[in-house]
């Protein structure tokens, strides 16, 4: 491991080097483009694509239409334009997916590193992890919703409150895997020669962790992050389905997928579009993760 030069290099140029390497990574750039397109679709889509609001009776005459020019993704069982719903849904699903994933990963990595590095805290933190792993999820979420929904809704409105609650609920119930994995890696890493050497020359724990440990656990963390986004999007749909999430007229990708499932044999496009959107999001995160890992690895970057 030749990371002595890294310590000397000023941070901006390091960032630039990472970016330069990242740009060379074909997969990562494809991933980034897909993600940007999905974000544009969700944020700016509804401003461009804004079909006229029909009355119930009129809309029902147009129900279950296959994709066509007027409805690029068809219409649903109530005659609503699926594309417009997909756009609004994307805002929620992307936001929930990423924010919840970031909470889970930051929490999991921090706890994992502290537990793996400081032996005194290991026992306590891992028992806490066991506790969280053992808690049955649905009662936990039901209790959280019961205790906090009305308070949150009072402060942030029903949608804002639901968003904070869902993101928080998913975040605090899905950090444990990352924590266990990171801890396992750290246990092995901290006995490696370069870490021992660094400690021998008097480096503080903080420095050892940031310089030597953290960069080397990036790779499993990236996988956990990829899985985390997918899981958060799906978990959100399950929560909303149970009535623990967003109000029922609030579309999310998971919910559109869930609703479409009933009609899968009749109108397969109703599950294909939301399914595709979720898969593409996950794929893009994975590709970006791959690129990021390569870009952060000085051995590859040097080449």
């Amino acid at each position, binding site marked *: 491991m030749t990371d002595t030069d890294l310590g000397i290099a000023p941070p901006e140029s390091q960032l630039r080097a990472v970016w330069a390497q990242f740009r060379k990574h074909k997969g990562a750039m494809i991933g980034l483009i897909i993600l940007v397109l999905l974000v544009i679709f969700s944020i700016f889509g509804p401003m461009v694509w804004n079909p006229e609001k029909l009355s*119930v009776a009129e809309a029902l005459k147009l129900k279950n239409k296959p994709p066509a020019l007027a409805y690029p993704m068809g219409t649903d069982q109530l005659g609503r334009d699926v594309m417009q719903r997909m756009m609004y849904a994307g805002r929620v699903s992307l936001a929930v997916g990423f924010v919840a994933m970031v909470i889970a990963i930051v929490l999991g990595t921090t706890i994992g590193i502290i537990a793996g590095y400081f032996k005194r805290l290991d026992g306590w933190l891992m028992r806490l992890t066991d506790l969280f792993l053992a808690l049955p999820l649905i009662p936990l979420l039901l209790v959280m919703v019961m205790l906090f929904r009305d308070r949150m809704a009072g402060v942030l409105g*029903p949608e804002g409150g639901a968003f904070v609650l869902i993101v928080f609920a998913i975040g605090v119930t899905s950090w444990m895997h990352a924590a266990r994995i990171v801890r396992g890696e750290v246990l092995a890493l901290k006995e490696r020669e370069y870490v021992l050497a660094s400690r021998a020359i008097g480096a503080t724990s903080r420095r050892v962790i940031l310089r030597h440990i953290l960069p080397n656990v990036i790779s499993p963390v990236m996988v956990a992050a990829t899985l985390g986004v997918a899981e958060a999007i799906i978990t959100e749909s399950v929560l909303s389905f149970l009535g623990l999430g967003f109000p029922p*007229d609030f579309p999310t990708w998971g919910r559109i997928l869930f609703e479409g499932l009933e009609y899968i044999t*009749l109108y397969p496009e109703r599950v294909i579009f939301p399914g595709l959107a979720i898969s593409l999001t996950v794929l893009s995160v994975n590709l970006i993760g791959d690129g990021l890992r390569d870009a952060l690895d000085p051995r590859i970057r040097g080449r």
Partner: protein
Amino acid sequence: MMMKSALLGAVAALGLAPAAFAERGADGHVNVLYWQAPSILNPYLSSGTKDVETSSLILEGLAGFDEKGVVFPRLAESVPTVENGGVSADLTQITWKLKAGLLWSDGTPVTSKDAKFTWEYCTHPEGGCAQAARYEGIKSIDTPDDLTIVITFDAPKPNPYQAFVGGTSPILQAAQFANCLGAAASTCTDQNFKPIGTGPFMVKDFKVNDVVELEANPNYRDPAKPAFATMTVKGGGDAQAAARAVMETGEFDYAWNTQINPEMQAQMAAAGKGVLLNGFGTLVERIEMNMTNPDPALPEGERSTPKHPHPFLSDIRVRKALSMAIDRQILVDIGYGSAGRPTCNIVPAPEMFASDNTDCLKQDMEGAKALLEEAGWTDSDGDGVRDKDGAKLKILYQTSTNPVRQDFQAVIKDWWTELGVEVELKNIDASVFFGGDAGSPDTFQKFYSDVEMYANNFDGTDPEPYLGQYLCDKIPGPDNQWQGENINRFCDPAYDALWNELSKTADIAKRAEIAKKLNDMLTKDSYTVVALVDRGRLSAAANTLGGVVLNTWDTELWNAQDWFRVK
């Protein structure tokens, strides 16, 4: 679909019946699917439909209800009435006679003692009997001889066909359950899982919430029945998967409660392996109006209680306008298809009790708007939402989680938005919504919203207890741990007086007249309860299964002894 099943039944009855009925057990095996699997086979310990209906294959009462809601004898010789002297003229006594020579599936004789024991079993104060309501008002049961059961009531009982009638109150074998009285009831796992009965089948093996394996009862009273030697009742999955297993893959012969959307109904019917059967009972999907104020700003304990009337729903014009804005036929088309029909009544059946109230069936958006204007609700600031004295017309509309209900919410929200009402939707998991936990803010009894939607019905054919739910003293509140059935907090002394009259009236025509009046007071006269859809039952039967008659007044498996294989 109805045509097809009717034809099939007729063909089967005419051409094939004699051959098929020749011998017990001649037709082999039959597969039944209850996607909500039975968890116990003793209906006195669980009132879930899945448990009651599966148990009805094994346990029987003195009488049952047929597909028209008429009482017919099962273990009894005949149905006692005032005319044949079986019911005393003052309506305080009913005398049942058992058929002679009846045997339990273990070969011992059925006696009147068993019926008396069953009454004692269910009315034991520590037993927590789920069907206790069926035995209410019984003073004593006497058994002058082995075949005679005399039930004496505390007061005149206009509807004496409750105890021992229908799948919810069958007769247990005294010998088997002798040690299971009271608190011991739940330790009797063997008895509760393998009750000895008089029905066409007996339990061979039972796996909780999974599968029941049954075989023909060798001592069933008709030596030629049942035609099937064995039966499996399997659980798991959902309604759509259940329908598919009968209609598309043909793995099962009968599936219970296959409530699927109208388009799927059409697609599955086209697969040609089975038919969807439907029938209408008393289940009505409705919107309940909250007559009290659910404002979260009110202190806990006063929210949604009669202390604070609702700021605008207490005005009948607002309630009526909300009802007028709804097109019930569209709701049926979206959610139920042939298994639903629009209704304005909360008592849609039996026919003699159903009011001819149909004025809600036609949507009248303009009329509704005019009514709100008249009530003083105008859109003074031009934002599309009506207001009055600075307050906006804003409604929180809650219901349980269920795809059809969420579609209804979306569509009704559209109509009410057009009317100038702002609507916020909320859905709640059914286990919480119907759980009645006094600690939860989300139960339907607490009603912390302006309107809520769910379905309700009544047992059997008599609506008296059901209409009794709307009495003033049945209002849920903090003083009774929110356990009350008057969800709307409706309170009208005239209604209470009329209901008291109903409970004392014996003449059936007079009863029907009063019941209709009560129904109208809740619906078209006050719009407290806004009925939407009369929901039928929808079940699926394979083409090769004969003799199936869908019964909405008793258990769906009421005539399993007559089922046979179409060859």
